[in-house]
């Protein structure tokens, strides 16, 4: 039999797959399905969101058939199936539920469109159909519409050495990173240069434990640093909530299915309010997503999100492979985010950096009039605006305000992480406060919106406040 793994890219085809069944009375039934879930070498599963004719038929007569289309070659595979069982819990159910809930959330259908069961079928045979296709004419010019879809890695196994090499590369680059900011830079750099994943971002859990914020990204016109995702919302929020890897290829196909269901529910006027659709963060035309939870001893520290315009960018094996990478990244974040101990190597590097900075400072600066910056802090939501434009809020907002006031009122320009941790007014949690990540976020937002205010590091656990402009600080109760 054709190995099931070798046709996994057909399970999310552009042309909808169909599931055929037959009642005990001999009446056939056929329905389109958005996704066929690979379970193991002998089984596939189909999602059940409603009890319908297909369900009744397989309970009466376990014989079934699934037809899937190869999205690249348009060849057809017909799977002869026998219904085995319905699962309402366990790994297969959980993976399918996560996928469905992510798409539901993405189409504003959270809580309405959910998985009732994963119907698992034994695959008895696979028939490969090519007779419906004419051979391509050799004189045909290349089709400009043809998407760039690289061969399925499962069908053409990559050299093992190559995979080990990229793993070694990212591991080595992460090990060299002296601090969290450098670590994130190395991770995204390696994903781009070594793995070929050009669009990626890392989000970390904020102090509420219910939201993520983007701390680093690569490949986008706008970095998106500081953007937030609530747990349970969209693909990334669903992964954060469920702490499970989510891979969605042929994203548009899945969304069309979800939107069709949304339209059907809306027209049924059930009275259930539908939430507005939330836009995908990142590439507006992304076709594939691989979203990985970053876990340390079962605790979520963040999410690594990869996306691609290639509809078949991520294969089944990527889940396990990138899962290893995600574990490494999570451990690295944990190591560098919570330790304030001075690291001699990092200190040396920073000292060199400081000398270089000093050398730059020794050069006569260009004579320019200092710019005036108007900062406003809104007490009701800890939000900071600069020159009328939103800058940052919550813990990083409170930190910035503390630093700016100390600089203006007391002339201070050197600070330690420790004193921030000991300040109860900042609202940092006593354990795993993520202070390092908040400072990274703050630095990046300042670099984007107000580059004449900087917070350069002065060795682990220490940093400076550098300001090249005149500050006007105003505090208001609310906007």
């Amino acid at each position, binding site marked *: 039999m054709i190995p099931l793994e070798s046709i996994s890219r057909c399970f999310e085809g552009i042309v909808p797959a169909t599931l055929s069944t037959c009642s005990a009375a001999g009446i056939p039934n056929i329905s389109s399905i958005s996704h066929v879930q690979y379970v193991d070498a002998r089984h596939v599963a189909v999602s059940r969101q409603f009890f319908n004719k297909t369900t009744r038929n397989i309970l009466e007569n376990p014989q079934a058939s699934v*037809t899937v289309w190869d999205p690249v070659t348009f060849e057809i595979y017909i799977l002869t199936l026998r219904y085995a069982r319905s699962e309402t819990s366990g790994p297969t159910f959980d993976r399918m539920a996560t996928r469905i809930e992510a798409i539901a959330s993405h189409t504003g259908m959270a809580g309405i469109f959910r998985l009732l069961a994963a119907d698992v079928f034994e695959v008895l045979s696979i028939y490969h159909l090519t007779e419906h296709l004419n051979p391509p004419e050799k004189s045909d010019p290349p089709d400009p519409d043809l998407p760039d879809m690289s061969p399925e890695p499962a069908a053409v196994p990559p050299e093992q050495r190559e995979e080990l090499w990229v793993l070694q590369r990212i591991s080595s680059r992460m090990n060299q990173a002296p601090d969290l900011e450098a670590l994130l830079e190395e991770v995204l750099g390696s994903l781009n240069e070594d793995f070929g994943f050009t669009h990626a971002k890392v989000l970390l859990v904020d102090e509420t434990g219910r939201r993520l914020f983007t701390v680093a990204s690569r490949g986008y016109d706008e970095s998106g640093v500081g953007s937030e995702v609530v747990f349970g919302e969209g693909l990334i929020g669903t992964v954060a909530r469920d702490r499970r890897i989510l891979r969605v290829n042929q994203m548009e196909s899945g969304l069309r299915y979800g939107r*069709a269901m949304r339209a059907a529910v809306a027209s049924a006027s059930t009275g259930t309010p539908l939430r507005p659709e939330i836009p995908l963060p990142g590439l507006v035309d992304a*076709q594939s997503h691989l979203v990985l939870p970053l876990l340390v001893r079962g605790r979520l520290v963040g999410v690594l999100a990869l996306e691609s315009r290639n509809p078949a960018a991520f294969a089944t094996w990527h889940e396990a492979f990138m899962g290893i990478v995600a574990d490494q990244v999570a451990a690295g974040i944990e190591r560098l985010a919570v330790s304030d101990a001075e690291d001699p190597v990092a200190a040396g590097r920073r000292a060199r950096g400081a000398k270089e900075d000093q050398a730059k400072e020794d050069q006569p600066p260009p004579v320019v009039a200092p710019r005036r910056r108007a900062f406003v802090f809104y007490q009701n939501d800890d939000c900071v605006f600069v020159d009328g434009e939103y800058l940052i809020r919550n813990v990083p907002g409170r930190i910035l305000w503390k630093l700016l006031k100390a600089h203006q009122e007391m002339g201070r320009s050197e600070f330690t992480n420790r004193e921030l941790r000991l300040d109860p007014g900042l609202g940092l949690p006593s354990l795993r406060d993520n202070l390092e990540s908040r400072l990274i976020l703050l630095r990046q937002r300042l670099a984007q919106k107000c580059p004449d205010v900087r917070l350069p590091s002065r060795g682990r656990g220490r940093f400076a406040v550098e300001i090249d402009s005149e500050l006007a600080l105003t505090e208001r109760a609310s906007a």
Partner: protein
Amino acid sequence: MLRLLHMLNPPDAGPSPRPATGPLSTLPPELFSLLEGAAVQHLVTRNATLAPSSALAFGVRIDPDSPNVTVFVPASVATIALQNLRDNGQMALTAVGPADVRAVQIKGVWLGERRLDDSDRAFLLRYRDAVTNVLNVVGVPRSRWRQVAWSPTVALRMEVREAYVQTPGPAAGTPCEGTP
């Protein structure tokens, strides 16, 4: 000859009128239009042991004067379907709009085969072009769909006895009025 073909069925011919009675008479317009429109279609039949088998269908023509339709199936994939139909005659067809996943299913019995005429061939050309265009919108290269060997085609006559909404959602599986 070409002039005669255009008179019989001009390239911009509209859809067939809706039958006055039977399950197709009560299909919502947006689902009725799928049957002769730009929808991906699959036919399902079953053998004597109740094992279902599906095949790509390549267009449906509606007879406005009866509950009957003609389902076109590429001959290259029709072998099992024909065996099953000769065994028991049970058939069903689903039509899915690729862009918005609206879907309809019709069920019925096989009445036999018929020969294709020129109007059928003109219809099939229009169907092929319409599906090529709509699939291209969702990312299927035109060259791929044009590779489908739709000719020679088998024309299967079907008496429609049931019609169902099949757009994903809570209403999927709802029978249309006129369905027993």
